[in-house]
């Protein structure tokens, strides 16, 4: 069997495994009642979609909230992750292993274990039930991904390029803009993608810290699911997964297409 055919088969299997679970959701969102043991709904309607897209359902406003919080979380994580990743990737310092362990810790500890304590602290600081509080809470699971991905990128980065650029007349911000950023760009993109999607899919931390005041899409989704409205749940779920798919399609090429010269070094 040729490699190309293997690749094609793997692609088909992967696509089926990823897309198949979404099919019932899609059907539900257009169903007008769908009872056991019917294989398919007997009647279809656009009622669920009409409702989901109406102002009354709150879906669009929570879509915007989710987007804004995920965006803010990503930007803050990048601002923290760039210097942190640089320090971890380029330099050796005492206690580096402990810092690494502490960084991974939030990814190991379940959110539910820290949520109540975090809530108490945030209440005390007046951060609960606010966007700021939710963004800060989201940073807990997001920063490890961002920092570790950037640390790996900086470990492959030779800072002498920055000195060379400096000596050629670039100011510090120009060095960052024209040398550092493009050279670690693919990793920053992956880190940002992870950050955005991890924040996008946060349920528990948003629920606890947001205190019902910050209504993101997963919260809206869950409330309709809990109410047994499978048709509306299906519609919201499809809206919910859309950004992830779109972002992935637009960035897949850039993530995998890294600079060949980085891998090959300067060997002739």
């Amino acid at each position, binding site marked *: 069997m040729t490699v190309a055919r293997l690749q094609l088969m793997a692609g088909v299997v992967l696509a089926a495994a990823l897309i198949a679970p979404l099919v019932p959701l899609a059907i539900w969102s257009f169903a007008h009642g769908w009872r056991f043991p019917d294989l398919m709904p007997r009647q279809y309607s656009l009622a669920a979609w009409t409702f989901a897209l109406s102002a009354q359902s709150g879906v669009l406003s929570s879509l915007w909230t989710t987007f804004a919080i995920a965006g803010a979380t990503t930007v803050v994580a990048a601002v923290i992750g760039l210097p942190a990743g640089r320090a971890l990737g380029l330099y050796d310092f005492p206690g580096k292993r402990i810092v690494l362990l502490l960084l991974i810790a939030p990814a190991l500890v379940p959110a539910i274990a820290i949520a109540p304590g975090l809530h108490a602290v945030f209440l005390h600081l007046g951060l609960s039930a606010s966007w700021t509080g939710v963004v800060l809470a989201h940073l807990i699971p997001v920063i490890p991904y961002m920092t570790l991905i950037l640390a790996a990128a900086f470990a492959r980065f030779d800072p002498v390029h920055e000195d060379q650029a400096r000596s050629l007349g*670039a100011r510090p911000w120009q060095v960052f803009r024209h040398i550092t950023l493009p050279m670690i760009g693919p990793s920053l993109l992956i880190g940002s993608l992870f950050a955005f999607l991890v924040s996008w899919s946060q349920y528990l931390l948003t629920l606890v810290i947001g205190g019902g005041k910050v209504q993101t899409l997963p919260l809206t989704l869950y409330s309709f699911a809990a109410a047994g409205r499978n048709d509306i749940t299906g519609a919201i779920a499809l809206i919910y997964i859309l950004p992830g798919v779109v972002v992935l399609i637009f960035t897949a090429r850039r993530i995998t297409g890294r600079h060949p010269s980085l891998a090959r070094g300067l060997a002739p």
Partner: protein
Amino acid sequence: MTLELRDVTKTFSDDASSGVRNVSLRLPEGQLTALLGPSGAGKTTAMRLIAGLLAPDSGDILLDGTSILPLPPERRGIVLVFQNALLFPHMSLAENVAFGLKMRGLPRDETARRVAEMLDLVQLTGLGSRRPHELSGGQLQRGALARALVLKPRLMLLDEPLSSLDVALREDMRDLIRHLQRATGVTLLMVTHDQSEAVALADRIALMMAGRLIQEAGPDEIFQRPNSVATARFFGGTNFLPGRADKGRFISSLGPLVLPPGQPNGPGVLTIRPEAVQLVDGSGDVRAQVTEKLFLGSQTRVRLLADGVPLTALVAPDRAEALSPGSWIGVRLPTHALWVLPAPAAD
């Protein structure tokens, strides 16, 4: 443009070997100076200090009489070209060469013109759109030179520009550096650990060891008239004979030898370059026994023992053909090739 280092010191707490200590040096305008020394001598540190990528602990660095220490690297008008031809991997060759001009905000058409001009000068015409990974080692090196020269720097620093190239390319690059320096008139300081490279390329050689400047002179002078045993050894000197100079003669265990005029009296170390030592059929200045013979291709190295004093001679292979370890031969030490070094401090 004259660069002057005044008593510059920079030490590192974590790396004692690579600092510089009390270095004073003047670079003559429009000339190529080689900063020569073994690895760990502090050469690269000196470069980084001049380029402004490091700040000295003490001392001053002046350009045309004005201290440049307050200026950041990008304002010094000095370009350092790092080892290994660091073209930025995410830019084409032309973008690399244009980099410095772009940072200065030069108009696009003038940038393009100067980049094309510079690519012609380094014989990379038409390769501007290539990526660094599509270029050979020699082309990368020339690209790196072009990227620096296009800025018309007041001073250009080259860090081991030839060491990453294989032997065949090295000579081409050496000629090119020489040619570029003459064509542009740029003042050049080049770091190297290879004394033959320094001798072949440089107008002046500054020899550094263990963070200190040992000697600064023209290639002939530093080669023929080193100022210390350490310098002589670095340039391949092997024959060192302790004794004392007295009224034009050098008294040692080999007996008195007539010195060339102008040598100071007093204790010292007599040296003669191995290629100046002559093997003769008669008695010569001294009789010696061959201890080892090594064929090196264009020359043969003969190690000798004369009255307990080890000597090394580099002679034409046919001259050494009849010799074998144990045989006796006359050794002549020509007066004009003798040179007395100061006796080293006890160590």
